[in-house]
């Protein structure tokens, strides 16, 4: 049996009832107490049973970094690989094994610094990988250097006078890399995180999910404006497909596309309700999704959008590889092998 989710139709489905407990491995979890990774792990363990897949057909592949310890704690198949290379390794696995649901666990350093090349190529190829990028905007495992998503001027051990390099916005990057599914969520918002994971799982092809994750040791409170119940609603734009984009306390703020083509935030009171931009993650043109990813004020995190930015259908690389293999004709026989070895020109010596 396979699942009802078309993107997972080739992955065998289980009849057994699964619970989060079934996905807990016997390994002791070793993140720092209070690390945001715990919440993500719990959310993933809680979410996986909803897929109804056979546990043995799920594989988690990670690189190096705090987040990359993730596979050890899940009772599925798992590979903890080397720094930055998880998307490449997962690509070979996914392409050769369509009966597997393959997930990549990575971080901001792993995916965007040392592994940047593999990430963008997995996305543009649309390999059937679900890539969870834990972004804590710092290097945790190597003890606190700035990362490619750290804000400019970050004072760290390696940048005592402040970091100079301009950060990546992972959602913007993924959209630029031809990704067919791009989303952002937050470690502490279990409900939102779970719903984004479900949408990623249902997507055929590469799905990039950026998860804002708190590193309470080296970058505590990095996303506090988005978490503090007192202020977060004012800052956080929750993208909902088909809905006008409104946010702020009582929805007093909204997003419009001006006559100059620019996407900007306005007071809803100042515009007609119908002027508000309706979120369309399925739009062919990634331009608006890109603009939404750029609204944020990097200093204050005001106007941070979360949710699914883009979700468009394009055949996965895996599927197209399968189709080419199938179109090549009948599987070769041993006579075919003989013919191959002989080639067109042979001669016989007696």
């Amino acid at each position, binding site marked *: 049996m396979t699942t009802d989710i078309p993107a997972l139709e080739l992955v065998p489905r289980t009849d057994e009832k699964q619970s989060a407990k079934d996905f807990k491995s016997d390994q002791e979890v070793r993140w720092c107490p209070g690390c945001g990774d715990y919440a993500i792990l719990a959310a993933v363990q809680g979410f996986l049973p909803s897929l109804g897949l056979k546990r043995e057909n799920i594989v988690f592949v990670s690189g190096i970094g705090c987040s990359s310890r993730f596979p050890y704690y899940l009772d599925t198949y798992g590979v903890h690989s080397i720094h930055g290379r998880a998307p490449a390794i997962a690509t*070979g696995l996914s392409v050769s094994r369509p009966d597997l649901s393959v997930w990549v666990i990575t971080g901001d350093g792993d995916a965007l610094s040392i592994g940047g090349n*593999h990430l963008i190529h997995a996305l543009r190829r649309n390999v059937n990988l679900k890539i969870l990028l834990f972004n804590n905007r710092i290097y945790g495992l190597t003890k606190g250097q700035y990362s490619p998503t750290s804000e400019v001027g970050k004072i760290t051990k390696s940048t005592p006078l402040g970091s100079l390099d301009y950060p990546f916005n992972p959602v913007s990057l993924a959209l630029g890399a031809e990704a067919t599914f791009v989303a952002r969520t937050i470690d502490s918002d279990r409900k939102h995180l779970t719903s984004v994971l479900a949408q990623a799982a249902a997507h055929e092809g590469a799905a990039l999910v950026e998860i804002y994750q708190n590193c309470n040791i080296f970058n505590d409170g990095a996303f506090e404006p988005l978490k503090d119940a007192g202020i977060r609603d004012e800052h956080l734009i929750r993208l909902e497909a088909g809905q006008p984009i409104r946010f702020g306390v009582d929805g007093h703020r909204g997003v419009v596309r001006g006559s100059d083509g620019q996407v900007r935030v306005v007071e809803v009171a100042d515009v007609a309700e119908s002027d508000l931009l309706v979120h369309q993650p399925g739009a062919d043109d990634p331009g608006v999704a890109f603009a939404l990813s750029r609204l944020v004020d990097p200093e204050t995190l005001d106007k941070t959008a979360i949710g699914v930015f883009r979700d468009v259908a394009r055949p996965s690389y895996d599927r197209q590889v399968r189709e080419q*293999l199938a179109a090549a004709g009948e599987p070769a026989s041993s006579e075919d092998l003989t013919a191959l*070895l*002989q080639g067109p*020109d042979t001669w016989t010596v007696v």
Partner: protein
Amino acid sequence: MAKERTRRSDVIIRFAGDSGDGMQLTGDRFTSATASFGNDLSTLPDFPAEIRAPAGTLPGVSAFQIHFADHDIMTPGDAPDVLVAMNPAALKANIGDLARGGTIIVNTDEFTKRALQKVGYDSDPLADDSLASYSLHAIPLTSLTVGALESFDITKKEAERAKNMFALGLLSWLYHRPMDQTKVFLTEKFGKKPEILAANLAALEAGWSFGETTETFEVQYEVRPAALPGGTYRNITGNVALSYGLVAAARCSGLGLFLGSYPITPASDILHELSRHKRFGVTTFQAEDEIAGIGAALGAAYGGAIGVTTTSGPGLALKSETLGLAVALELPLVVIDVQRGGPSTGLPTKTEQADLLQAMFGRNGEAPVPIVAPQSPGDCFFAALEAVRIATKYRTPVLLLSDGYLANGAEPWRIPDVADLPDLTVSFTTEPNDTDADGNPVFQPFLRDPQTLARPWAVPGTAGLEHRIGGIEKADVTGAISYDPANHDHMVRTRQAKVDGIAADIPPLVVDDPTGEADVLVLGWGSTYGPIAAACRMVREAGHPVAQAHLRHLNPFPANTGDVLRRYRRVIIPEMNLGQLSLLIRGTFLVDARPVTQVRGLPFRSEDLAEAILAEMPAEQPDMSTLTEESLT
């Protein structure tokens, strides 16, 4: 006019011209005809790295050498008997290699004042007497071709481009080669352009007729078929043989083949070839870089495929971290390095054997990897089978070291019977292999086979065997993360012991010493086999016994290697590097091995090797001027 026919036991021809003159194609066609005629042969393509180096310049010269004979030969030959030079640059770049008294066929149309100046000829070598010691045939190949194609509806440029076919026709006449296959080939190549096809066929015929009718050539040569061992033969290059070996190995193993690769000279042809054989269960993936190439191959291996990655030296350097991961994960993986001149970009189109130590040691930590090396183009097929055998049986990455000479060189290949190919069936682990303290069945991913020390290969999708593996040191048996000092020491030694143990599972080193009297052994590995064998023949012919042994396995060495080496007073190791195998042999066996080295981007000349071997002989040296591989048969 019937011409005189002279029989020759062997001939070496070098076709040389501008990169755009089609010399590789010409050589290739001549080779194909020669192969089907039944001669033994060996070829050496030698072309510039630039796709189109400036026309008429020395760096732009592209050459193709073929040695063919009525007996078995080992090398593409040292000094050509015949040089076909399509322009002054080709003449200048190659004349130094030509045997005294050799034949030169030049295209006089290209010997203009400007062209001569471009390559630094002060006076026309065709007009002065600088070529007096050769048999010179100055022929206006271009204008003869254009003349022969006057009636065709093609441009002058297109007519000129057919001059290589004219040359091929002429050489085919001169050496009595059949042209049918070339005609079939041309028909396939130019099927969509009937005028061009007709012109090329006409040029080919015109070249043949020119030989037959003009008085330039008084003699036609004949090289009879060689008496090779019985069987069905084809001509094959190393890269094609290697590709077929991988296809065959996957089939013999019952698994799919997954190639992850990034284009790099001279390995790309393996990617090209394998991408055409999807029906054989072959998936090819052109990765974003070398690292992704091996990464994807490793991922596929984890999933239960024969994972392969192909590259050349600089690419191997990039792959080393992932190769180390494969050592730690203990998964089968085949890494093919078609070596080229280094360091860095080095000489992309030239051959070298200088990656041996990189293959052996080029990783962090103690990360032993078995190494196999083919010894001839056709042998690449069997080396690929052997690499897959070791990788799957021992769950280890294996390095296969080919080189540019093997990759592009060709030889007649006795096609193996598919039924005789080895059984490489792999069985995945599907059941728990241990019980826990309470007697419940459990799966231990690092519980080894006591014989091979291989760990179980349990692929995703196998119920009940869910497990995690990674690059962090693992506890013996359970595979759980472990930083325990004693465990690490144990695991490092165990991984080494696993690779060392392969020595018991490979054939012993075989010595070729016809008289049994030799006290000098010439030891080699890889593509030097041909030149060494030819050199040993010369030395024996000169009255000196000499033994030859050739290593297919470089890690581990065959179990009897030390015993063999110690039987000889002197061990000589010719290598296309600065003595890498010598270093390993000395370090491993405390034998005073003497390296004979060369890093010219070209295979050894057998004569040079014979001299080097003779220099180690006790007796006085014979006169080498009379010694050639050809003269000894």
